[in-house]
Each structure stands twice: as C-alpha cells, then as structure tokens.
C-alpha cells in the first residue's frame, strides 16, 4: 500500500512538473522523499535495533559456533570453518529430524482441523461474544508453556485424573497408557500450538466481508459452495500464517517430547538439547540448529509458493 501511494504521488508530482516545466517541484519532491525516509527510519529504529540485538547477533553467534572445531578437554573450541560439523550433525540426526517433521505435520493438521471451525464460528456467528470467546481460547496461555505441558503429564498420568477414572469404571484395561508415547507428544504439541493457529485464522476470517457470502448465495451458491468458493480462498492468508506459526516452532519443540514422550519419541530439538547440555558439543549443536532453521525456511517458502499469499491477499482485497 505505501508503495502504491508513493508511486501515485511520484506520478502526480511528475505530472505537475511536466505541466509547469520548472525546477522547484522536483526539489519539493526530493525534500518530501527525504523527510519520508527519515520518518520511516525513525519508526523502524526501535524494532530494528531490537532485532539486531535479539535476533541477528545471536544468529551470527550460532553460525559462528557451528563452524568451530576442537575439543572440550583440549583447549575448547576454535573457529576453523569446520563445515564437517554440518555433515556429522545431519548424519547422526536424520531419524530425529524426520520424526520431528512428522509429529509437527500431524499436529499442524490437527490444530487446523480444530481451530478453523472454531475461528469460523467465532468470526461469523459469535456476534457480541466474539472477543470474549476469543479471549477464552487465549486464557490458558497466560500460564507458562512448560507448566502447562507438565500439567498434562498429571492429567494423562497412567492412574491419573482421566485414565484412573476410566480404569476404575472398567472402560480401559489396567495397563493402558498414553504418556511416554507418540500420541501424547502429538496431542501435547497440538494443544500447545492451538492459539497460534486460531489467532491468524480468526483475523483472516473476521476480515471477510460477510456481504460477499450473501452475494454468493444470491447467485445461487449453496452454503457449502459459498464457503468453498468465497470464504476458504479469502482465508488463505490466515491459513498460511497459521501453518507457518504452528509448523515451524513445533518442529523445533523439545518440551513436549521431553515431558510427555520417551526415548521412542525423541525429536530433533531434544537432540540439540542433549548435544548442548549433556555432551557439551556446542559446535555440532549449533550446526544442527542451523540445519533445522534452513530446513524450516525452505518449507515456509514452499508454503508461500503453494498457497500463493500475494494472490490471496489480492483476492481478499478485491
């Protein structure tokens, strides 16, 4: 939008300059552009500085660490462009990367299946309860991520609140359990990332002009056709944001598998943690982090390509 405006403005000023054939308007244009860029930099500065300190610098440090070699017990690690760390880290962690991608994909699909109808209903039918209902989705997330996950450990305990009760009723065999297995881990990720899926979906769905759905119906679309041809495409930007916000961090997550899983559910995040906290092998831990980061970037870009965010943004705007 700002680009379009500046283009329009440039065209306008060019037209004005052409009409009069004089210099001053050009100077005014330059002055305006300068002032605008100063303002832009001023507005960007706090966020930019924050990103520099909190994101770029650590990122550089991670890459720097990932290229170190040496040994903990022989002088520590030195920077040597040790690219072999990447090969070693990848070779020893393929299974765990694959498993993390699988769990994360499953959890992402589940969160979308859960969050989409929820967000849809709130956006279209909740009326004046909209904010209250949405707030209710967010309420549990005022509690720390780890504490919430540990709580699930108690709820899902073998003889705990849920299964203990069902076992007492004879509805479940005594040796039934969900914890320390993949089901608990995927369920945990699904639960923990639900709001990150619901929020962008809700924003996208709420923005849709309800008149468009009416119009579709006027044109003899059934309810389902109206949803499929109007609402769904218009919610693509939200869906894209939801996918990225859920899938990417869920792949690197290590809390759910640590707390709710076992050695049979080890995910790549835990491997990084072990390399870092148990083996004190910082270079390989850093290399694995970078591999994961690049992998996620590629996947996010692929999503963008497939879901075509720009097109759907245009569609939403049209």
């Amino acid at each position, binding site marked *: 939008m700002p680009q379009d405006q500046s283009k329009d403005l440039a065209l306008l000023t060019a037209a004005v300059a052409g009409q009069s054939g004089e210099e001053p308007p050009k100077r005014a244009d330059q002055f305006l552009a300068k002032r605008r860029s100063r303002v832009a930099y001023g507005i960007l500065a706090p966020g930019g500085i924050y990103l520099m300190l909190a994101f770029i610098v650590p990122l550089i440090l991670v890459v720097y660490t990932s290229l170190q070699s040496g*040994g903990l017990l*022989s*002088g520590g690690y030195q920077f040597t462009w040790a690219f072999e760390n990447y090969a070693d880290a990848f070779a020893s962690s393929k299974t765990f990367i694959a498993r993390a991608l699988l769990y994360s994909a499953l959890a992402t699909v589940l969160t979308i299946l859960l969050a989409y109808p929820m967000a849809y209903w709130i956006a279209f039918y909740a009326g004046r309860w909209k904010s209250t209902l949405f707030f209710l989705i967010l309420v549990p997330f005022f509690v720390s991520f780890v504490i919430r996950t540990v709580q699930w450990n108690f709820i899902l305990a073998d003889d705990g609140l849920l299964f203990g009760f069902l076992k007492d009723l004879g509805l479940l065999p005594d040796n039934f359990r969900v914890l*320390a297995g993949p089901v608990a881990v995927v369920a945990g990720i699904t639960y923990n990332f639900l709001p990150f899926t619901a929020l962008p979906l809700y924003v996208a769905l709420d923005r849709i002009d309800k008149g468009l759905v009416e119009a579709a119906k006027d044109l003899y679309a059934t309810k389902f056709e109206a949803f499929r041809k109007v609402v769904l495409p218009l919610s693509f930007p939200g869906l894209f944001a939801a996918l990225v916000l859920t899938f990417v961090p869920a792949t690197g997550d290590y809390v759910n598998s*640590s707390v709710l899983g076992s*050695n049979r559910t080890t995910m790549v995040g835990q491997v990084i943690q072990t390399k*870092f*906290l148990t083996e*004190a092998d910082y270079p390989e831990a850093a290399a694995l982090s970078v591999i994961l980061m690049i992998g996620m970037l590629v996947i996010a870009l692929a999503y963008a390509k497939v879901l075509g965010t720009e097109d759907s943004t245009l569609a939403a705007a049209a």
Partner: protein
Amino acid sequence: MTHDRKDVDPGFSASLMRGMTQRRVSRRDLIKYGGATVGTLSLASILAACGGDTAPGSGGQTSGATVDFSAPPGDTINFANWPLYIDSAKDPDTGERIHPSLVSFTEETGIAVNYNDEIQANASFFGELLPQLQAEQDTGRDIIVITNGREFTALTVNGWVTELDPSMRPNFDANAASWAKDPDYDPGNKYSMAWQSGLTGIGYLTEKVSRPVTTMDDLMNPDIVGTSSVGMITGDMPDLVMINLGIDPASSGPAEWQEAADWIQMLKDSGTLRKFYDQGYIDDFTAGNLAASMAWSGDVLYYKIWENKPYEWVVPDGGALLWIDNMMIPANSANPQGAYQLMDYVYLPEIAQMITEWVAYMSPVPAVQDLIAQHATEESGEYAADLADMAENPLLWPDDALLAQTPFGRNLTTDEEREEWDAIFVPISET
C-alpha cells in the same frame, strides 16, 4: 552465634524450611527448559566470542592460572551458585533476602559477597563462561560451583581455573570430610573444594512394587516393578550401572562401558523401562507413573520425610554413585584472594552448619552432624524433631562402610575418551 537463623528471621517457620530443602536439581528442570539457551547468549559472551578469537593449540594439559594468594583481597566477591543451595533468611530491618553465612563472612572480613544463584545446569553455565575463558578474560565470577564431570575436567585441564595454594586453607585442612579431600578428579584439591554433595541410587514407590527393590537387576524384572514403569537418569546412568556390575568407574575403559551399555539395552528389552530422564523424573515419580527409578537421595527422602509419602530410597546392593559440587575460582578472577578466603570460611563447622540446616545435603564438614544434634536439643516442637531427623539420617553423614560402596563416576580426561563414551551411551537413551 550472632547470625543464628532465628536471630535474623524471627518469622522463620519449619514448613518454609521444608519447602527450601528439596534437591535443587529437580527444581531446576523447569528453569532449564525456559532459560538454558537464553542464558548462553548473554551479551558479554557474544562480545567475547566476536572479539576474542584465540589461537588453538594452547590446549592440552595446561597448568592452572597461578595467583599470589598472599596479596590483599579485593572488596567484593561474585559468587555463582545453584538455586536453593545456601542458607537464606529475610533481613528483619530491610525485608531483603540475605544469606546469614555470607553476612557473617562480610562482618568478619569486610569483603562484600555478591551471591547469584544463576547456575541451572553445568553445561549451559559452562557454555556461558566459555568465550571469556578461551579469550583469557575475567568471567565476572570469583567463585563458581561445578559438579565433578566433563565441565569440571575441562576447567582444570585447560587451565581455566585458578590453582589453589594448599597452605592457605586452615579450616579445610582441619574440618573437611575424608571423601571431600583429595578426590580422584582433583588430586590434592589443587583446583577445587567441595561445596555440598549427594548420592544417586534407586527410589521406589512401596505400593507399586511387589517387593522392595534392592538391586539394579530388579529394575528389569516386570514381576517386581511392572511394565513401562522404570525411570533412568541419563547423565548418571552409565556410572551407576557400572558400579552395580562390579566395575569401578575409575578404572573402566570402553570394554566396561560397552558392558554397561549392554545392561541398559537389556533393561530396554525387558519392557520395564518407561523413559530416560534428564532430571524431570521426580514429576513422573510423584504422579505415580513410575514404580521405581534411578533417583537422587535428596529428592525422594524429601517426600518420604517431610510429606510422609510411601517412598523409599536405597543404595542398591552393588553401590550408589557419589557426586560432589565443587567451588572453584575461574582464571582471571578479579578477586581470587577474597574468593579463597570465603571458600575456606565455609569450612568452619558453625558456618557449614548454617548452610546444611537449610539445604539438607551431605556436608563436607562432618562436625556439623553433632552441631545439628546439639541445635535440636536447644529447639522445641516440630523444628527440633526435623533437626534431629537430619542429624540422624545416615545418608547425610556417610560412614566408611557406605563410602566404600559409593565411588565417583568415571572422570573423562581426554576428548577421545569423551567421544567414545558419548558414542556408546548417547544413542541408547535417544532411541
């Protein structure tokens, strides 16, 4: 004692003390998940990493940084320790949290102590200091507390900690326990002195086992512990298994490590194993998901004694694993003289007593046992009973028979050993 806890904080309650005496490690796992990676990316370490690119090759068996300990001490000590690992009280005047043992030190020496409970895991804390250590800069800490293990060894073999002058620690010489003196990982206490210590053995829920667990092999017997109900602590597991296979970790090599790994594989195949834990086993233990688990004595005994839970903690027949958290002075510390004075000061029995009454760990000062028993007779009610329990607990005051059964873990001294060890044990707990 001018700084008896009761003088400092009249509002002190026994129940508060219970809340404070839980084994530090089980509490730190929550913090670990949240803060471990953040902590390692402190600005200081970033700057040091970017600036100090020291040449490799200084590695190997460097001797520690030497310091003239007879020089006058500086006026402040920066002391990095684990959470809940020192006596605490509320200053009645200011309402601030103080540590009476340290207040007492400051009053006697005039040296202020800036105490910071910032250590949540050996490796992550070590990682935080590493850039400064490699760049031969001051880490900003004068005393750090590190468990015997690979980070400890890295600090000593790389010359990243200050060599201590053995002629300048009279209290340590007079009062330190036999097990705290001359440990195999630091001969002659050249670099370190014990802060507190503990044991790794087996804990179990009496209701969930068909008979008391007495050996490590019991852990792989489904008739005793059931299925999917045994927890193992990844870090301590290789050593505890070796000890119970009759192998002395100190003299073990790859063949013995493989033997221990095979035992762990047998445990996995038996169907009794639920999970390998970093340290969060106590949550599953208290939730009743585990019937038995490798466990730190402090964790389980805390629930057994203070909360009357049906838990037991035992030294398995083959023995338990002894670990020590050690005070050290990082190289290039700004105030090594003051730090060393404090390290020796906590070996005064009455000071060590103040610390142990709070943290309830194995004190490196055996004389503390009688002082606590004495203190119990001067108190009344529940508090007196608690103190008496503490003074009588054989696991806090190990005798020679117990010590003979509780060796240290294998001290890995070279990178080759370390890598071989990890190649054997890490895959077992990850798959």
